[in-house]
């Protein structure tokens, strides 16, 4: 509190209904932020520390707790919003950069929600996936432009072309990179079990590969980011694929910072840094100052792993994303990950999270068009990430040109996350974004794994239904098929970028 600014209105108000409350104390136990205490025959609350994570609400056996948002708001003003005013108070006090969690929180229109899908009527039959085959198998990696064949003496055709290794997914839904350190071991374990069960893959993030995850390494994509934390030959060889992270949709152009207090003994081991030291990932890779440097790193990683593993390159969706992706396609890289500006994060400067980068829908459309235009679409797969919330988003982004998606926040929500946005504080009461053992223990990797697998399975079923309704029985025929999308109230310039017609057209 500062003398001249005073305290700001609380974000939430927590109240306990005394008639309902039976003083079991579960709220006191569950709240990692200390919003509750028992005072004689009543529960007292401290609303100011509440994050609306709903842990107390979820575990109160009597539904006695109520959390309301903005009980006392500022005088409303369309320009001087609460967010703007509070950022100023904050910076007036501290003189620092304002940090925030989760993804972009500004009220930009959602392109996904202004695209509608197609279905068959009369002239072609829709396909019932319960009765007919429906293929979602997806291959990520370089594909040949054409095949070299030779006719043998017995009339059989022999394939001379050597294929590059591809990752084979049973469903085009993967889980993106969230590192050990940013999230807990149990959260990673749960997701690893889920992707193994679903026949898909997840990213390790830049936190190394903790030993308990090794049984699932066949479904893990290991990451090489600018801090190079946890990277050695053993790590590279364990992964099913390797991903070079150049940038992140939530904070394009800047690096990352895991505070020293989160670097405990286990994390120090997997990241290969001293216990308690800050893990700082620089903004650029200091060996990549140009596209040819990236090509060199891709080749080095391929050499180190004997050209047996696909190498992906992840970039944030920025204005020039299409040209950058075309450069990446010309390297030995197998896939480019396009991370849109709605991508989540543990912590990012507010101004970056809310103002830098472009939506993944426009970015993927532009990248796919540019690669086709240059005849190099087969050189590289496109993985879309950042703001994929449900199965229809998956269908739409594939129709705009993506091969597969990474989900992040959606997988965490399946583990219980309430999107409270306080990941950077390390006190996640759901055991996800924390390293405090008592909190981590709240997340059962078995049950969590089932929940995340259920989510992927449910989306996969919906994907099949939506494709069947459109008369498509294989995911390849959806990819880049923008004719099966229509835009609803999107301006002409954006329609041109998306290469999508208007509803009714």
């Amino acid at each position, binding site marked *: 509190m500062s003398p001249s600014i005073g305290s700001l209105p609380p974000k939430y108000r927590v109240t306990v209904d005394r008639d309902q409350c039976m003083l079991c104390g579960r709220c006191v136990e569950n709240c990692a932020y200390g919003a509750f205490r028992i005072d004689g025959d009543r529960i007292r609350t401290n609303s100011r520390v509440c994050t609306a994570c709903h842990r107390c609400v979820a575990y109160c056996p009597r539904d006695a707790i109520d959390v309301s948002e903005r009980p006392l708001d500022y005088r409303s003003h369309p320009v001087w919003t609460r967010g703007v005013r509070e950022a100023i108070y904050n910076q007036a006090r501290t003189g620092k950069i304002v940090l925030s969690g989760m993804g972009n929180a500004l009220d930009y229109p959602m392109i996904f929600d202004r695209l509608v899908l197609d279905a*068959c009527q009369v*002239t*072609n*039959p829709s*396909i019932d996936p319960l009765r*007919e*085959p429906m*293929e979602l*198998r997806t*291959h990520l990696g370089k*594909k*040949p*432009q*054409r*095949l070299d*064949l030779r*006719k043998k003496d017995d009339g*059989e*055709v*022999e*394939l001379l*072309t050597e*294929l590059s290794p*591809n990752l084979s997914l049973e469903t085009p839904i993967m889980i993106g990179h969230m590192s050990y350190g940013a999230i807990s071991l149990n959260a990673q374990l749960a997701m690893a079990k889920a992707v193994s069960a679903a026949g898909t893959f997840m990213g390790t993030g830049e936190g190394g590969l903790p030993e308990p995850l090794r049984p699932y390494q066949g479904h893990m994509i290991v990451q090489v980011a600018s801090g190079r934390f946890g990277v050695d030959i053993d790590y590279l060889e364990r992964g099913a694929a390797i991903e070079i992270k150049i940038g992140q949709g939530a904070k394009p152009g800047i690096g990352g910072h895991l505070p020293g207090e989160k670097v405990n003994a286990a994390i120090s081991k997997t990241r290969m840094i001293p216990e308690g030291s800050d893990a700082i990932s620089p903004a650029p890779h200091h060996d990549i100052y140009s596209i040819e440097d990236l090509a060199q790193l891709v080749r080095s990683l391929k050499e180190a792993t004997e050209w047996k593993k696909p190498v992906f390159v992840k970039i944030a969706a920025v204005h020039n994303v299409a040209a950058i992706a075309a450069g990446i396609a010309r390297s030995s890289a197998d896939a480019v990950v396009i991370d849109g500006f709605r991508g989540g994060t543990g912590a990012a400067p507010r101004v970056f999270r809310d103002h830098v980068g472009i939506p993944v829908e426009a970015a993927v459309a532009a990248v796919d068009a540019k690669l*086709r*235009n240059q*005849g190099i*679409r*087969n050189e590289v797969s496109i993985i879309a990430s950042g703001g994929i919330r449900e199965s229809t988003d998956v269908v739409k982004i594939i*129709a705009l040109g993506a091969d597969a998606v990474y989900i992040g926040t959606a997988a965490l929500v399946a583990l219980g996350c309430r999107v409270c946005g306080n990941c950077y504080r390390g006190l996640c009461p759901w055991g996800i974004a924390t390293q405090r053992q008592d909190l981590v223990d709240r997340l059962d990797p078995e049950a969590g794994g089932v929940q995340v697998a259920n989510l992927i399975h449910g989306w996969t079923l919906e994907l099949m239904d939506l494709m069947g309704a*459109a*008369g*498509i*029985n*294989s995911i*390849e*025929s*959806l*990819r*880049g*098929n*923008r*004719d*099966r999308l229509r835009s609803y109230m999107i301006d002409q310039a954006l329609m041109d970028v998306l290469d999508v017609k208007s509803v009714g057209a």
Partner: protein
Amino acid sequence: MCGIIGVIDRGRQTMDGTAIRRALSMMNERGSGEGAGYVAYGCYPEFKDYFAIHVFFDNIHETKPRVDELLHQWGRVVHDEEIPTSDLPRLRKVHTPWRYFFKPDTRLMPRSTTPAEEIVTELVMRINTSIEGALVFSSGRNLGVFKAAGWPEEVADFYRIEEYQGHCWLAHNRYPTNTPGWWGGAHPFNLLDWSVVHNGEITSYGTNRRYIESFGYKCTMFTDTEVVAYLVDLLVRRHDLPEELAVTALAPPFWDEIDKMEGDRQRLYHALRLTYGSAMMNGPFAIVVADQDTMVAFTDRSKLRPLVGAEHGDRLYVSSEEAAIRAMDPDITNVFMPRAGEPIIGRVVA
């Protein structure tokens, strides 16, 4: 709905258009009288080394000189004339069909292995995208497409189809939903030696079109069928795939089936699906594709459109309906139905 039929004589004996006209009319139930067409292979023996360029002109005086100029710039026209037609009371002649017999100057395309074909493809794309009022609808050697808006028998009589001889014929009876009455929208669709007739709807058209356009083809006919002609040209002529494998690329086996294959065969099919995923065609269709020596018919992977085949001596027939084949040749010996995605292939052996 649409009705399709094709015949090839494997001994290269020719037949005139009478029988296929009768067969196509047999399927009037499948059409609406708004589009029909024929292609005859071997119909221009006196000009067999020249590309027969058929063009619909909206206006002879204004647009034809621009096409003439372009053709002269890229090669030599040895003969050109209006395609002979008969006046029919019920068929309104909205275009003037014209034909050029053209030899491209291959020195103008020095780096290509098939320079003549490259030049003609380029000319077709250029005329169809940049000269308004001119549409090239046939561009192969010793073959001709004849199509218009009308019932099969009207279109046949209009073009006097009975006067042409061919060793291979395809024909199409159209029930349009997309571009009714437009002559360019009638089948067959043709590019160079490839002609296509198609019954169905290609739900993957958006993917296929963007794929084929990345190789320089331009889709100008507002219909999903032309993309098939370009895909076949790409796969067979430019990528050297045998016809069987080209069909496999367009209507591949399901992954479950590939998983059960062994060794080299599995590797080949796996590679085909990976390489040509964007060329794969989805949705209900039965398609007949022909070139000078081959006729290939196939359906989608679930066989959501009908296709029957039959033989009589050297003659191989394919059609949407057995009745149509019987109308053409009552003495057919064996009638068969291919399985989904499995091609029927007929080759000239003489």
